[in-house]
């Protein structure tokens, strides 16, 4: 975590490390969808951003979603714009993928696969975590 005194001194040009933590399946709750909306807004501010998909959150970026039959909107492909919005560091937790029988081939985004201990380390490096 950042030292409060350092933040005070750098006033205007604060750049923080912020990570979006996507933990939930795409349509069981609104979290992934409204989480995506937060990502797109925060991306407009020049911060050091990253995202990690873990637990059922890995389903949010699974290819071939078609939620029409449950009357829901398919927002999955919108995740593809993230790198263009400056969120280039996109991680997926290895264990979450494996436990669900998925591989990176099943995902609609280019991601870096990291194991649980690496996720922990990445989270510890952040100033802000946005859990959705």
């Amino acid at each position, binding site marked *: 975590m950042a030292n409060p*005194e350092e933040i005070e001194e750098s006033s205007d040009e*604060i750049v923080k490390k912020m990570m979006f933590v996507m933990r939930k399946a795409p349509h069981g709750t609104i979290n992934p969808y409204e989480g995506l909306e937060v990502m797109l807004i925060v991306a407009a501010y020049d911060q050091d951003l990253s995202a990690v998909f873990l637990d059922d959150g890995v389903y949010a970026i699974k290819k071939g979603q078609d939620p029409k039959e449950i009357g829901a909107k398919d927002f999955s492909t919108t995740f593809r714009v993230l790198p263009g919005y400056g969120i280039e560091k996109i991680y997926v937790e290895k264990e979450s993928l494996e436990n669900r029988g998925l591989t990176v081939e099943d995902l609609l985004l280019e991601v870096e696969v990291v194991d649980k201990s690496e996720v922990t380390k990445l989270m510890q490096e952040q100033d802000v975590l*946005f859990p959705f």
Partner: protein
Amino acid sequence: MGVKLKFGILILEGPYQHQSSDSAYNFAIAALEKGHEVSGVFLYNDGVNNATSFGDPPQDDRNVQEKWSKLAQEKGIDIVVCIAAGKRRGLIDDNLIKGTRISGLGQLTDLAISTDRLVTFGD
């Protein structure tokens, strides 16, 4: 006391169904009592329901929305309802508790940037 911190609070769950809002409220009170600053509270996801003026719980229970309203007015804490999340759930200017206001996700971003810690309460 030690270092004085600026806290931002993000609430993602509505009142009663989850304890998040009560915990966030208790956190805010405790932080203020310890001499810290609470720079703002941002209501998102179902958390926007913490700002509805339509709440009318039984008299022998706490009124979560009213507690937030009082805190905002008495301590001057900025409580912001996300406009997009609020519109989805029927939260508009006409049915907001006193002391809260509607604005955009940019406010959440500002809170995350300007505080020492952004503390999230939610499921």
